[in-house]
Structures are given as structure tokens and as C-alpha cells.
């Protein structure tokens, strides 16, 4: 709203400045000097490379073409040939730049103040009539190159089933299924970072999903089998490989329920569960320093969206919340000998509440409140509150400014001030709702 007002006022101002001197609407043409005419011509919108200039250029192209010049209708029949004769995949790039202006130093993982957090390159195409392939590679200074996601989607299964093989963001919770650069905040909520990993939970394996609507609204069940459900802790070497038995794999299930409340508002309520064995520390041994213990995550998430269709370019609102509980096995089987279990002796809870309101065509404000019993700090509570301003110059670029106050229990609170810029090159595919 404010942005629009500024634009309108600026337009009036510009008009007022230009009108008396240059427009000279009341003065006869003969009274104008050549320089005035030239200045007008420069200011005239038709002289600029704008929409109308582009249209005129296109018209010239049509007129110059054999069909256009022969007096046939000005329209062109679309080309009947392929627009992709080499069958190249869609290639797109997303850049994610982070400028950390926090008063007590950088809060980024690599300690940089001004950094390229990640460049993501995507290759997407149909493989054959039965499969589609999606590959997302991540480039950053810490990990260099990593396979963010790479999956094969079966598109021709019966009963409206969809199966995927490969690595993907785990369909657990709501925000975890969104790429980090597409979040409305800089990072995943603290509970997701602490329970699933700073870059969200990913797994390599397979998934199967089914859409149904026995009650008249959209429901979807997604089940997966993966090598893990969360980032393994570096340096932990379990007595037996975690995936040695099938029970050591990660299993997840998610049920989505989506309802249109009105034409302008909708509600999504979902529940997720994930279970796996994870390496947990034990008293140090020469051969191993961890044992496998079961960890189960349960979560519910609720998202309310409001977007009046007619004003959809200017107004919208999202309210979203997630609650997650991490349940840890407290007495896992220990190998013979004097080994003491040092893993978590309790379960942990966490969640967040996020709201985002659209204030103009390109502008949004948002806020998030976080709370998590931090597994990395023996369950002591970490609370955080953050506010954001998002500006989208276009659909393909985003600028975010935000501040976060983080209060870990028993430690001094600190403030983060972060600017973020993301941009997309190429045919970046739309993301799921």
C-alpha cells in the first residue's frame, strides 16, 4: 500500500515537474523551440524501449515477413515444428546471496558477512513416456558441490499413484518440503534446523503417494523409505552401520488435508511421522563412539491462506504453524563392555508460528516466532522472534531484509540483521502449493 502510494505520489510529482515546462499543453505548437520538441520526444514514452516500443518492433518483424508483406492477416500461425528439437532439458539457476549485518559478527555457518550461500542449478525434463527426471545441484563455499535433490518420478502409474526414486526433500512437515531459497524467511524454522538439519531433512530412497477425496476435499498420503531422516552428526561412528538392518532405514508418512473454506480462503491441516535409527554417542571406545538408537518424529502443521481473487495481485495473507516432537529411545542395546550411553534421555518439542501479509503488489511483511527444546543443548529452550520485509522486483527476483532476536536459555541473547537477495535464471519451475 505504502509502495503504491509512493509510486502514485511520485507520478504526480513527476507529472507536475514535467507538465509546466515541457508539456506546455496550453501553448501553441509554433511557440515551441526545437530543443523543447527534442526534449519532449525524449521524454515521450513511445520513444523509449517500453511495451509499446516492443510491440511496434514486433509489428515491423511481422510486416517484413513474407506472410505479413503479402497482405495476409497480421497474425502468425504458430510454428508447427518443435520448439526444442534437440530435446534438451530445462536448465535453470537460482542464486541465493546472504549479507549478514548482525552487530556481534556474522551468524552464518561459514562466518561470512557477505556471501553466496548457494547457487542451485536444476536440470528437469521428461525421461521417457513413463518417467520425469529432476536434478538439483548445489554449489557453495563450504560443501563445494552437492546433490541437493535428484529423483525420478513415475508419471504413468495406475490409480493416480505417483512414485519417486532418488534423493528429495523429505515430505515431513510443511516448510521442509520447500527449497530454502523459496522460503519467506532466511532459513528454516529453528525446530526444523534442530530436528532435521540446517538445510532441511533430505533422504535418498523412494516415495509413493496417492491422492483421494472420499469426503469431498483433497487428501494425499505420502510414504517414503530413505537412508535417513536427519543429517547425521559428524564424527559419530556407531558400533554397527546404521543401515545394516532394514529397521535402520528411515520411514516417513504424511497425510495432507486441504479444504477450500471460501473462494478466497483455504486451510491445510497435515500430520507427519518419521522414524529411523540414528547414531547416538556413547563413552568413547577405540573402534566406535556411538550406538544406534531409534528416533521418531511426529508433527502436525496447519496453514491458513487468504487471497481475494480480484485483489490477488495486491493482497494476501498466510498464517502457518507447525508443532514437532522428537521421541528418543532412552535405553538402546549397548555392546558388551563398560559402555555408557550418552544420547538424549528425553524427548524434545518445538514449533513455530509464521504470518505474512501482502502490503502491495510487490511487497510483503512477515513475522515468525520460534520455540524449540534444543537437542544440541540438552533440551534447553531456544526462543526466537523475527520480522521480515520482502520485496519482489519481479517473479524472478526477491530482496529480503529482516531482523531476528535469538534467546537460547542460559546464554546471552543476540540479534541478527540479514539482507538476502535471490534470483532465478531460466525456466524455473513453479513450486507445489
Amino acid at each position, binding site marked *: 500500500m505504502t509502495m*503504491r502510494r509512493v*509510486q*502514485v505520489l*511520485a*507520478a*504526480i510529482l513527476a*507529472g507536475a515537474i*514535467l507538465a509546466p515546462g*515541457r*508539456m506546455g*499543453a496550453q501553448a501553441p505548437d509554433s511557440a515551441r523551440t526545437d530543443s523543447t520538441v527534442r526534449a*519532449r520526444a525524449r*521524454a*515521450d*514514452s*513511445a*520513444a*523509449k524501449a*517500453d*511495451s*509499446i516500443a*516492443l*510491440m511496434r518492433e*514486433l509489428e515491423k*518483424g*511481422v510486416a517484413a515477413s513474407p506472410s505479413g508483406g503479402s497482405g495476409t*492477416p*497480421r*497474425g*502468425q*500461425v*504458430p510454428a508447427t515444428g518443435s520448439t526444442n528439437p534437440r530435446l534438451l532439458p530445462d536448465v535453470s539457476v537460482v542464486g541465493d546471496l546472504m549479507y549478514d549485518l548482525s552487530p556481534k559478527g556474522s551468524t552464518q555457518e561459514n562466518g561470512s558477512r557477505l556471501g553466496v550461500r548457494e547457487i542451485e542449478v536444476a536440470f528437469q525434463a521428461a525421461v521417457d513416456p513413463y518417467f*520425469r527426471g529432476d536434478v538439483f545441484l548445489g554449489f557453495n563455499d563450504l560443501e563445494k558441490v552437492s546433490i541437493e535433490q535428484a529423483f525420478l518420478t513415475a*508419471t*504413468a*502409474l495406475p490409480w*493416480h499413484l505417483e512414485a519417486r526414486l532418488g534423493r528429495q526433500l523429505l515430505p515431513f512437515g510443511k516448510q521442509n518440503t520447500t527449497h530454502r531459497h523459496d522460503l519467506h524467511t532466511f532459513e528454516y524454522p529453528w525446530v526444523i534446523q534442530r530436528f532435521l538439519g540446517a538445510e532441511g531433512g533430505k533422504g535418498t530412497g523412494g516415495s509413493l503417494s496417492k*491422492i483421494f477425496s472420499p469426503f469431498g*476435499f*483433497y487428501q*494425499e498420503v505420502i510414504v517414503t523409505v530413505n537412508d535417513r531422516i536427519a543429517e547425521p552428526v559428524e564424527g559419530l561412528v556407531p558400533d554397527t552401520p546404521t543401515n545394516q538392518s532394514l529397521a535402520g532405514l528411515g520411514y516417513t508418512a504424511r497425510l495432507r488435508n*486441504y479444504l*477450500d473454506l471460501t*473462494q478466497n480462503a*483455504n486451510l*491445510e491441516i497435515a500430520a507427519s511421522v518419521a522414524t529411523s535409527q540414528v547414531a547416538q554417542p556413547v563413552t568413547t571406545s577405540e573402534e566406535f563412539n556411538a550406538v544406534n538408537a531409534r528416533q521418531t518424529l511426529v508433527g502436525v502443521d496447519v496453514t491458513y491462506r487468504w487471497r481475494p*481473487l*480480484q*485483489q*490477488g*495481485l495486491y493482497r494476501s495473507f498466510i498464517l502457518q504453524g507447525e508443532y514437532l516432537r522428537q521421541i528418543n529411545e532412552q535405553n538402546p542395546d549397548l555392546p558388551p563392555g563398560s559402555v555408557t550411553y550418552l544420547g538424549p534421555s528425553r524427548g524434545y518439542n518445538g514449533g513455530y508460528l509464521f504470518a505474512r501479509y501482502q502490503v502491495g*503488489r*510487490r511487497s510483503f511483511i512477515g513475522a515468525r516466532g520460534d520455540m524449540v527444546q534444543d537437542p544440541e543443548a540438552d533440551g534447553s529452550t531456544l526462543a526466537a522472534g523475527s520480522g521480515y520485509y520482502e520485496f519482489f522486483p*519481479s*517473479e*524472478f527476483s526477491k530482496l529480503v531484509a529482516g531482523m531476528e532476536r535469538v534467546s537460547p536459555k542460559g546464554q546471552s541473547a543476540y540479534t541478527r540483521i540479514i539482507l538476502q537477495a535471490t534470483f532465478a535464471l531460466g525456466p524455473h*519451475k*513453479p513450486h*507445489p*502449493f
Partner: protein
Amino acid sequence: MRMSFRLLKGSPMRIMTPLALSVALLAAGARPAPAQLKVVTSTTDLWDIARQVGGTRATVKHISEGYQDPHFVEAKPSFVLDLQKADAFAYVGLQLEVGWAPVLVSGARNQKISQGAPGDVDVSRAIPLLDIPSGNVDRSQGDVHPLGNPHYWLDPANGRRIAELFRDRFSELDPAGASIYATNARGFEAKLDAAAKEWAPLLAKIKGKPVVAWHTSWRYFAEYTGMNLVGFMEPKPGVPPSPSHLAGLILTMQRTGAKVIIMEPWYDHKTADVVASKTGATVLMLAPSVGAGPGTEDYIAMLRNAVTQVARVFP
């Protein structure tokens, strides 16, 4: 359940009688109603033409609303349910729906409407297009459509082409209904011809008149009516007006004598009002799609409404 149990315990005759009656009733009523062709369209304009061609043999639903910018539609999961059951999905194409339709179509997991299937109806393939860039295209030119301007339904000649495409495609999907689709398409075209004759005198008033539009969506309408588009509110397609662009546009309007600014209902009229106040122009909030406003309940009414409103400005 209890009743069934009692029946089963009764004599064979007592069991057979209701069964026979049921079978007889089913047989009598089994004259199946003609199978309904299930069609989903991306926009209300395609929806209206599809239902006119499909008639009673087709059930047609649409995804976007007429008063909604078709570039920006939320890919709501509820639409997936409609697409999951569809025999055909008809869309404008030329990347108009690129931000949302691919998610819905892949989410529907319906082979009948997957790319290249008979039910995948890219309507733009039947249309002579305007504004096809011939050179390099990039996003510095704004939200330019590299395959051509997608707002072609605003020319009634293209409405006729859409009807003919639907006639052919529906006949392919439902050969038993081919004659009905042909009859319905002819009926639609006759109505369109009659309406065009009715508003022909109004076109004479519009022809050659300088007009400013908000977005390039009115290109086909301008081609049809003969009105002269001398500028756009958007500096580049899809880019909101900047103060410097508006200042230049005001000069353009004063130089050309443009007295009308045409815009869609989903844009903010305050900016257009500012330009109008500086130029003495009239801001026309025109319905670019079926259902976008009063008097636009079908395709022909929508066109009639647009022609009438523009003509009314010119004495």
C-alpha cells in the same frame, strides 16, 4: 444388514423375488445416459466456448475466475481433483499459465491430459498469433511471452477458431457425439456472427482512435476493433508503472490525443486515475474474460460489453 440376514434365512423364492425385481429395475433403468465428456479449462473464456460446443454431452469446469489475473493463479490442490477426473484440459498456452498449470497437471497424475495426449488441448495451436518475438528474448523485456501474445480470445475470429478446435477435439475424444458437437459449434458461430453484425456500427466509432491500455492483453482486441494502441501503462509487460514512465506516457497521450485508458479489474485504478487526471482521459475498467464483471456472463456478452464500453467514450 439385518434385513439381508432375514432374507437369506427365508425361502429361495423370497430371496429370488427381490433380486429379480432389482435386476429388472436395473435393466430398465440401464439405458445409460450418454457418457459425459469431462472437460476442465484454464480460463472462463475457454470454459464458456467449451460448454457451448459440448452442450449436454460435456461437463465443463474452469480453474481461474474471470476477475482474476490468469498469469497469477494459485495452484490449489482442489483443482487437482477436477483435473484427475478430466478427459480433456484446455488451456490458453503460450506460457500464460506457466506459473501454475504444470503443477496442477503433474499433480493430477492423469494420463488422459498429460502432454501430447488427446486430452491435452493447447488452444494456441489453432490461433494465428500476434507479437511473436523473432530475435533473442530475455526477461529484461519484462514478462514477455516468447511464443506470442496469449490474450487471443479477445478477437471474435479467434473465438470461432476455438470453437472449431473444441468441436474437432471433443469429436476425437467422444466420436459418438461428433454430430452434436458440430451442430453446437455451428450454433455458437451463428450467434457470434449475429452479435458481431449487431455491434458493427460501434466498431466504426472506435476505428483509428488512440487508446492506452494497461497491459498488452488488449492487442487482439485492438486488431479486431481497429483502435490504435499508442501506449501502455506498464513500462514493460508485467512490470508495474514507474513514475518516469507515467510522465512519458502523459506526454504521449497529450501528443496523440488518447482519451481512454483501458485496464483490467485486477489492477489498481488509482495509478490510472492519476494519468487520467493529467490528460482528461477516461479510465475504462474492461472485463477481459467471461465473468469478470456485470454483463459478461458468456463469451459473446463479454465481447459486446467491451465493444460497447469503448465505443461509448467516442461520440
